[in-house]
């Protein structure tokens, strides 16, 4: 599959601080690529470099097959993490302006369709300053996609949205992919990343630590996780043989097993402590993998 974005050995530093170090990445066309990583790990810097808002100190970035930006700029939509809308302009005005900046001269029909789609038609003539946060976020999203880009970069598209708007936006993003748009988005919501992304990329301290499909990432960690529910309050799970960590989710407990620990032995040890209502041997969740990488000290594991 041809790549929508190809990043090769890209490095970017701000003064003494290295934001991105020797990063290589290929985002296939027509895919949804999730960027995850703790705050300040280099996600936004990477997105800005793809957008040529920042220039890499070294390495090359090819977007939609082109190294020169002017030829592809209009085919790439960008939703920055911090939303930026002119407060004094009306919704329709600002959408027309942003569409014009993407080279789309007659944007009326596209704007109307998107406003309808995201339930904003009634607010089209309102000033941005009169919109709620969720509404202005949706306006910003429309501004990103109104010019029918082949590639969209969404920096934290779901942050601050209520469940209903979250759903609306999720459907819109999936529809974009169906229509042939490649989507890259960053998120802190591991559930969203697991459910939506074809590929997941994790950056930590400016370096790539994960890159691939969810399955391939989870496979690399193996089936070392047991989810159990015991009758009663589930206390007293510490000290089970072969268990390195217990995470209590309240109604469910997650046990991480030692490499080489036998799940059968864990089960029998559990049965000695109480009635087991649920026992499931599974792969670690993305959330768990994320935390293992980003909190190596607390996890007692080496930094990946």
């Amino acid at each position, binding site marked *: 599959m041809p790549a929508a974005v190809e990043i090769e050995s890209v490095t970017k530093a701000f003064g003494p601080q290295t934001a991105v170090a020797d990063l290589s990445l290929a985002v296939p066309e027509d895919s949804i690529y999730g960027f995850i990583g703790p705050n300040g790990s280099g996600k936004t810097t990477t997105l800005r470099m793809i957008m040529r*808002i920042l220039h890499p100190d070294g390495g090359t970035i090819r977007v939609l097959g082109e190294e020169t930006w002017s030829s592809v700029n209009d085919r790439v939509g*960008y939703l*920055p993490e911090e939303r*930026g*809308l*002119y407060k*004094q302009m009306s919704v329709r005005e600002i959408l027309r302006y*942003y569409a014009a900046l993407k*080279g789309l001269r007659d944007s009326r029909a596209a704007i109307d369709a998107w406003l309808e789609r995201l339930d904003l038609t009634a607010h089209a003539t309102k000033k941005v300053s009169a919109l709620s946060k969720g509404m202005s976020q949706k306006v*910003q999203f429309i501004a990103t996609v109104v010019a029918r880009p082949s590639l969209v970069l969404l920096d934290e598209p779901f942050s601050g949205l209520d469940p209903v708007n979250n759903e609306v936006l999720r459907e819109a993003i999936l529809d974009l992919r169906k229509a042939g748009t490649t989507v890259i988005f960053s998120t802190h919501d591991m559930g969203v990343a697991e459910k939506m992304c074809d590929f997941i990329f994790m950056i930590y301290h400016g370096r790539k630590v994960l890159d691939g499909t969810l399955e391939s990432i989870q496979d690399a960690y193996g089936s070392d996780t047991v989810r159990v529910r015991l009758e009663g309050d589930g206390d007293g799970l510490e000290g089970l043989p072969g268990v390195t960590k217990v995470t209590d989710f309240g109604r469910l407990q997650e046990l991480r097993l030692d490499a080489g620990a036998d799940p059968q032995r864990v089960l029998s040890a559990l049965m000695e402590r109480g009635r087991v209502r649920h026992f499931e041997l599974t792969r670690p969740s993305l959330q768990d993998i994320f935390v293992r990488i980003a909190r190596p000290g607390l996890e007692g594991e080496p930094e990946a």
Partner: protein
Amino acid sequence: MHKVWAVAAREYKAAVQTKAFIVSIVMMPVLWGISIGVQVLISKAEDQTTKKYAVVDRTAGGQFGAILDAAVKRHNEVEILDPQTGERTGPAFEIIHVPPSAGDRDAILRQRLELSQRQQRGDFVGFLEIGPNVFEMRVRPRIGDKLDERYEVRYQSDKVGDRGFDRWAQRAVNEVIQQRRFVDKGVSQELVREIQQPVWVRTKGLTKLNPVTGAIEDASDESRVLNMALPAILIALMFVMVLLGAMPAMQGVVEEKQQRIAEVLLGSVTPFQLMLGKLIGVVGVSLTVSGFYLGGGYAVAARYGLTEALTLPLILWFVVFLVLAVFMYGSLLMAVGAAAGDMKETQTLQMPIMIVMTMPMLLLGAVIRDPAGAIAVVGSFIPFSTPMLMMARIAAPPGVAWWQPALGVLLVLATSLACVWAAGRVFRVGLLLQGKGVRLGDLARWVVRG
């Protein structure tokens, strides 16, 4: 280029739709009118006052007493009245005669101190001291000769702005002294008065040939005023127009930075396109306001029959230089906006630009007095002052040869391009930089390193 025009159109619309814009179009002429009116009223009110001055007459027997009283009477009853309307055109004088101290140095100094203190208390505006030997004729002292106060009249005051009395006193005292000297030489006092009768020197502009009727038109009183005022008005207009357009644009850039709109924009246009679009928008704003003011000015000029001064080439040069000035200063101010984190920070960073911008205003006097003089010519070829000073020189008679403003345009064009280029680099770095104080040195580094 389509994107540049889209940016320009948004900037223009955003600027002209604000209340501030409408207010400035309407209010500025009103404010100017009010400030001129207030000044006229204040000077009129001052004309109605009577100012007191102390006089110490050290001549033997106080020979000036009666003579000065007569001169003051003539001043108050004749000289300050407009011969046509009878209106007072200046303040009246009142003399307080102070007996002179003893003639030794100490006593004289003590009296001067005492009078100085009385002046500070407000007893009078200043004091005149007439030396004991002023009537004596002596050879004009050569350069380097020691001054002798006994042969002089001195005026002391800390009211530096009060210029009427010392000039009047110099004339009045000298008339009296010369009369005395003539009379002493046997010329009759009446004859001296007749000889001393002054002749008016009337200052006018130039006499012109009317190209339509072929008649010779003598210079009007107003044309001279216009020769003085037009360059000043055009300079002030250009200064205000640049600021009126560029300042809101600078604030706009700060806003875009604070509201994180800049990042959205930079996802679609290059910093240079963004800057160029904004500058074109600012030019549009400045030209719109100039259109209003020049139109209004033309209407006023037409009312007084002075439209010949506002020629088409003059207006065209104004437009050309205004556009260039907006590009030159506007790009620098926008770079400041991009570098600063908030409006307060722009205050410090824009200082050097404001100083350079006000330079031409300081040279205005010299340029109007002598538009072809060295200061005017050199000043009008320093790119940062060219738009304003060249404009003033074009407007002041006799004008300048066509190649001078043409060369000026080339110089300013080159400088403007350099400014836009440098500002574009600052723009790109500055726009994404958040929450860090920026100093002028940083700006220079960004220009060099990009």
